[in-house]
């Protein structure tokens, strides 16, 4: 589920953009260190493969079909850092060339799919990939990657105040669960097909960065659970929530700390402040990106 621009409230997309920029910078650095030079074309071609794989339909029954999403499969075959970079590149091409997903919402989509979804998908393989439960772990990984990403996207929409009646919410959660089961089954079938072609395609998880991986994966799943629980109990979204609780000024500055000025402008309806705060947000995102680039360059130089 790619969120287009115009769906998320300003505090939501701005926060997620600011959070995604350093995360992607970190993943790019990790991927670059972890793989030898020859892997740059490999990552690009694998991104193209995931795009193309969506053309192959998997018959599910009763005339319907589904297709691969691919986050877990990429994490198994390229490692989590490289998979995050490839998925980010896919989302960027989809947002720019195919108008699938927004540009301001890119941070949200990257966090949902390329980071949280991918990590949640990698976690079972990391924990149980070597043992007897390997097949279940692969299935569970595909399942969790789609479910985590979809639930996070849903809770961000709810948090932004997109209205959704309880019945509708239940239906969409049901649909997410079905597509997650499908992704698990497809991922498992492809991994088995790949291993019969060349057992080296699927990497054994490295045990080096133990608690970081486990922690990040668990955090991603936890975030999804908390997000949907929080958002569905407060269906009016971030704005009304702050008013209702009666601690509006505190809550608003808490939710939108980087753009506190924008909140002031909203309350007083002064356009100048809003424009100023919007530009400040732009500057903030830009600054975060530049900082990442500088850090990367320094790492490379050292």
């Amino acid at each position, binding site marked *: 589920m*790619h969120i*287009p*621009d*115009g*769906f*998320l409230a300003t505090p939501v*997309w701005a926060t997620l953009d600011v959070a995604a920029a350093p995360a*992607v910078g970190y993943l790019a650095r990790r991927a*670059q260190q972890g793989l030898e*030079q020859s892997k*740059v*074309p*490999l*990552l*690009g*071609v694998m991104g*193209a*493969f995931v*795009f*193309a*794989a969506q053309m*192959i339909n*998997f*018959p599910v029954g009763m005339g319907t079909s589904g297709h691969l999403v691919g986050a877990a499969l990429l994490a198994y075959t390229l490692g989590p850092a490289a998979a995050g*970079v490839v998925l*980010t*590149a*896919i989302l960027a*091409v989809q*947002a*720019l*060339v*195919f*108008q699938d997903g*927004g*540009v*301001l919402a890119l941070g949200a989509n990257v966090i949902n799919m390329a980071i949280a979804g991918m990590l949640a998908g990698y976690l079972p393989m990391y924990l149980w990939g070597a043992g007897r439960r390997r097949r279940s772990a692969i299935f569970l990984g595909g399942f969790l990657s789609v479910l985590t990403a979809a639930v996070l996207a849903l809770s961000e*929409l709810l948090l932004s105040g*997109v209205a*959704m*009646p309880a019945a509708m919410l239940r239906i969409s959660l049901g649909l997410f669960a079905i597509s997650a089961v499908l992704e698990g*089954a*497809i991922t498992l079938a*492809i991994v088995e*097909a790949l291993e019969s*072609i*060349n057992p080296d395609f699927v990497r054994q998880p490295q045990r080096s960065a133990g608690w970081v991986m486990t922690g990040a994966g668990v955090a991603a799943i936890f975030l999804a659970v908390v997000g949907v629980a929080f958002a569905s109990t407060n269906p009016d979204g971030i704005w009304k929530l702050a008013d209702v609780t009666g601690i509006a000024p505190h809550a608003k500055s808490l939710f939108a700390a980087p753009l506190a000025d*924008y909140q002031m402008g909203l309350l007083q*309806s002064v*356009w100048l402040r809003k*424009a100023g*705060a*919007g530009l400040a947000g*732009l500057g903030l995102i*830009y600054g975060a*990106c*530049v900082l*990442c*680039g500088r850090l*990367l360059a320094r790492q490379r130089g050292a």
Partner: protein
Amino acid sequence: MHHVVLDRWSRGASALHRRDARAKTLAVLVFLIALATAQRSFVALSACYFVILAAVVVAAGLPLGSALKRASVVLPFTAVFAAISLAAGEPMRAASLIAKSYLSALAVLILVSTTPLPELLRGLERMGVPRYLLMVTQFLYRYLFVISEEAQHMRAAAQAKSGSIRVLFNRSKFGAAAGALGVLFARSYGHAEGIHQAMLARGFQGTFRTLAARAFNKADAAFVMAALIVLVGARAAVEAWI
């Protein structure tokens, strides 16, 4: 195909095509933020921004009708949520979802159809986006067509061999699709190794070289300033008078 048309459009020769990728990226970001943060007098603002974008499309020498049609690919997704909002008794939110997502898509479409993607990515690199990510993106875009074509061939071959008998759940067909993707994966992997060998043979040392690095000249700076004044000014005017 969609992206082939965009590629052709992006090689036009209008004044907008000649602007630096960074200038156009900044202008689009200003537009997206001005639109996303708008709350009051929303209908008038959307109409005003729509006219501005349409004027830009015409000025860039792009076919207006097909550009507007292409931007509407966001609408099916948006329409679902707009319908939900409408059913929940919030017609203004439904209108705002449709207008904001459509106008944002149109603005991004103008950016990519006046800037060739390699140039856009180079501009992003100089704006501080990690180079490794952009190199992967560039390879992805380059090989999208190659791998997609292989996938299409495989799909045609599979259809020719197995027909399309619909059954409740066909395990062997599911397995066949997985097998096809496994083969596609292996072929893509092979492609990547061949590409890397070819790059090394031509002296690749870890970065893409470009013939002439574009400078951010005065016209580009003027363009960014003009975009800022027009977009923020239009919003201020609409909010002050309507």
